[in-house]
């Protein structure tokens, strides 16, 4: 791959930036990258993050909550300056701001992956039951009755466990 700037040397620096919500990719040689100040190492990622935090118009000065997080004391300005949230409670304190942010970064606000067993066993079981129910519908639709019967048994046994588990 040749450098985009000079077109002569091999491109050895590759950076993806998000600028005003647009993804920009650049491939430069070492020399051209050093001349272009935006490529000083480590800064880009920070800029990209800050831009995520700055973007939402709904964070206008009027709408912005003045109060900080009751646990860590961080205000929205602190969070923006650090490009980090202060504690797990911040996620609740700044609920709607966080959701705007998550949608911008991930395109969604909903986690569907792993759930910790020891503290959230119930949610984990519920999720498993939900998955199995979907598989059961599928099996019935495909007329795989033997498989459907197995799935039904599994669901029953998990529901039994759910009843035995509180909150």
């Amino acid at each position, binding site marked *: 791959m040749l450098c985009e700037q000079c077109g002569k040397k091999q491109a050895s620096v590759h950076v993806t930036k998000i600028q005003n919500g647009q993804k920009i990719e650049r491939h430069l040689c070492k020399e051209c990258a050093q001349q272009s100040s935006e490529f000083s190492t480590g800064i880009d990622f920070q800029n990209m993050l800050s831009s995520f935090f700055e973007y939402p118009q709904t964070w206008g000065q009027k709408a912005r909550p003045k109060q900080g997080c009751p646990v860590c004391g961080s205000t929205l300005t602190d969070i923006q300056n650090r490009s980090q949230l202060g504690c797990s409670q911040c996620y609740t304190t700044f609920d709607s701001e966080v959701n705007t942010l998550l949608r911008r970064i*991930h395109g969604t606000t909903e986690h569907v992956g792993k759930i910790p067993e020891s503290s959230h066993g119930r949610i984990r079981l519920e999720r498993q039951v939900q998955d199995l129910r979907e598989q059961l519908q599928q099996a019935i639709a495909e007329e795989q009755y033997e498989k459907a019967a197995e799935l039904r048994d599994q669901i029953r046994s998990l529901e039994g466990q759910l009843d035995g588990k509180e909150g």
Partner: protein
Amino acid sequence: MGIGDAIRRALSSWTKKEGPHGDIVLGTRVRLARNSKDVPFPGASSKEQLQSVLDQARSFPDVLKDEGSFVFYDMAEMDALDRDMLVEKHLISPNHARHTFHRGVILRSDEDISIMVNEEDHLRIQVLFPGLQLQQAWKHASRVDDCLESKFGYAFDKERGYLTACPTNVGTGMRASVMLHLPALARVNRLREVLGTVSQFGLVVRGLYGEGSESYGNIYQLSNQVTLGHREEEMIEHLERVTKQIIQSERQAREYLSQPERRLAVEDTVYRAFGVLSFARILSTEEAMQLLSDVRLGMDLGFIHHLDKEILKELMVMIRAAHLQKIMGQNLPPEERDKLRASLVREKLNPQALKKS
């Protein structure tokens, strides 16, 4: 004993072993970000809070005893060179080596697993395996995660998943990546096309040492961009599928380069690289990496047989500044490092040449 042997023994197992698709995939990494629900994230914690997390982490080797032999290290008690060596081995972040107070690292004896304590998040669990082993690496990381979860109440939310300091990691907290050696695609000028396509599939390409770092020696890291909205297995499978496509492109490019009408030109590059590495007296990291990449391509294409295939991975870690300075047991100016780097590489590639000189 040669100068390289002392630290060769200290290398992580992933650099010494060849894994599946090891001719192209140098290594696989899965990293999980986890936090305590009781303490603010490290960036907003008091010294006392950071210390309490660090103290808790001291007991983790015991908690993890079914997963192997782990040792806890306080970063502030570690020598600066040793910290930099951990960065060069990809076991901790550069940031973790620079800011050491109330920070720790837990390493498994083979260094396949490392846990950073009080980096950006309270815990960063990392599994690093040779070759393409995404499923295995995820399973291992998840098992370590299960062990720690029972002792360390995680910040977890039903809707948003694992909560992290930076919202780019929230959800699964998982960053899975593969380290790829793509010399043939680079040579046929197809890298840009291939790596450009990758970003349309929700993946990110970086150089050898992370964001904005340079891609020495045609080595690239490929990882998932988002951490929320997909199951870990799904993300792993997706990354694996794209990686296999790239492997296939690289294999085709290698095939193309070994056809009779092109073979001689490639062979020439490979042997020139071998010649320079065998006799040079001064080598920069950048030059050494490019030449080592050429030599490794020569091994993969069957021109060079007498060298160990893992020499690229070993040397790419051993020739870095901290490793070189560790050999000499002192800080060295860049010129001295370039001399030492050249003699280390000479010894590995061409021991006879070293003796005669």
